């Protein structure tokens, strides 16, 4: 196990490019689906992210009175960096940027960093809608974070390691019988995906930036700031999908194609599925989602964990 090679730091540039392309891809897919739903040609919607990027790059930064510029910069910069910090521990086939012994916990720490970033993005502009969006995100975070944590624990427990490479290897090894963990941990997988939808600050499970708060944390962001936050949240969705690959989907294992390509294919498919599913879900108010999170998702994740624990004990 643990047969991944840690590559030199400059390869982070390749990871950033891959992440950027994937983020552009999911945004284009989202735009195409939205355009089709509105009765416009899908191709127009698919071009939307590029058009929006060009527009935002030329747009002058709009500022508000008595804004906390420093904290806004921290939030905006953080959005650009957080997805990279997540994928740093995800093995691309046999290569990984950081072969951390506690990679699973690291991912969890970065997804908690998103709490900070969203709240700071809401606080920074000194504006009511932004602030409301930031607060709504924290209320929501209370509901999804604990179930998400326990869903991350299940694969790590089954693999007996917090190293992401080990978790991936355990699924293809003899002990895992070649079964990806999603097959016998479907509940943990669903809870995890719910968490990804929630922390990627978009759609029904992320009221921080929705129309109910007139754009919330995004309301006062303009120009490059807005571009980075929009790109960052798309990147968070992709990073969440990428992390599910070694955790639940068997990592780079698969027929014919090399490992790294399988990781990319699985990531792309899961990210696309999340975008499609996201559009089908109803909007959930944070306090309602709290009930769902604590009385459905959390017990479900714990029962899943119990099942995995029993399997681990019986097998040993």
């Amino acid at each position, binding site marked *: 196990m*643990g047969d991944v*090679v*840690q*590559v*030199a730091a400059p*390869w982070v540039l390749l990871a950033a490019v891959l992440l950027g392309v994937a983020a552009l891809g999911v945004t284009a897919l989202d735009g195409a689906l939205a355009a089709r739903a509105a009765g416009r040609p899908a191709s127009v919607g698919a071009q939307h992210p590029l058009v929006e990027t060009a527009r935002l790059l030329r747009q002058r930064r709009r500022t508000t009175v008595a804004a*906390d510029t*420093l*904290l806004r910069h*921290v939030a905006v910069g953080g959005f650009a960096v957080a997805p990279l910090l997540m994928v740093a521990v995800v093995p691309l086939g046999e*290569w990984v940027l950081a*072969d*951390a*012994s*506690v990679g699973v*916990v*690291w991912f*969890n*720490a970065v997804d*908690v*960093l998103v*709490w*900070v970033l969203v*709240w*700071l993005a809401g*606080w920074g502009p000194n504006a009511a809608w932004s602030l409301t969006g930031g*607060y709504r995100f*924290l209320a929501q*975070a209370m509901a999804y*974070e604990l179930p998400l944590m326990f869903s991350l624990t299940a694969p790590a427990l089954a693999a007996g390691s*917090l190293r992401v490479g080990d978790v991936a290897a355990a699924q293809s090894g003899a002990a895992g019988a070649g079964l990806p963990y999603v097959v016998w941990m479907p509940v943990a997988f669903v809870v995890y995906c719910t968490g990804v939808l929630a922390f990627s600050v978009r759609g029904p499970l992320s009221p921080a930036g929705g129309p109910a708060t007139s754009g919330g944390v995004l309301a006062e962001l303009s120009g490059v700031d807005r571009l980075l936050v929009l790109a960052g949240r798309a990147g968070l969705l992709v990073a969440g999908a990428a992390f599910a690959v070694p955790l639940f989907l068997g990592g780079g294992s698969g027929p014919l194609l090399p490992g790294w390509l399988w990781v990319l294919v699985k990531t792309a498919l899961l990210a696309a599925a999340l975008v499609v599913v996201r559009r089908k879900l109803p909007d959930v108010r944070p*306090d*309602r989602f*709290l*009930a769902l999170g*604590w*009385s459905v998702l*959390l017990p479900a994740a714990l029962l899943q964990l119990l099942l995995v624990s029993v399997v681990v004990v019986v097998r040993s």
Partner: protein
Amino acid sequence: MTLQSLLETPLPDLSVLPSLSVLRGVAVTALGVVAVVTGALVFRVDSMARATYLLAASFVAVGAAVVALHLDYVGVVVVLMMLMEMAVMGVFMVMLMGMNPALMPMSMVHSNRRALVAAGASFVVLTVGILLVEWPTRATAAPDGSAGSTEGGATTYSLGDALMGDHMLVMMVVSPVMLATIVAGVVLAQASGRYERLGDDLKGARR
């Protein structure tokens, strides 16, 4: 040169450098300085949000220092917990400072003289403690440079053993009970929950 050979270009073998433990020492010291400076700045800024997140930055530096001391798990968990805690604390700080509007610039200090005495005294006590305590020597070999080893886990294990010893089982039983208590508390406190709608005996009419 193919992509594969380029990717697998061997890194300089850091484990042979005698200076790595020195680098670690430098890192721990630098992170300690960052932790102290950001911690001190908490009292110099005039915004509740900045104070809260400077404190978070201070704790993150502490977590990173703990990672540099080979306690990977403990260090990353410190970062995780502190980011979460400070995000929630920021909400409460802003909320509870209603008399002294936290949405406006405000001073972060009060009772200066007493605070100085308390801070000075605790600094002296802690420093004397650090200097006088007879520190144990490391039981496991230092895991410097061995990227694939589980030595970091061994350090965490021995720390847990030293802290908890025979009480480990008790702690492990207590923690799910505590989690269950928290979940029950949230379920009971929920405004839209059934206890709120139907009364404590769950027999009331729907409100």
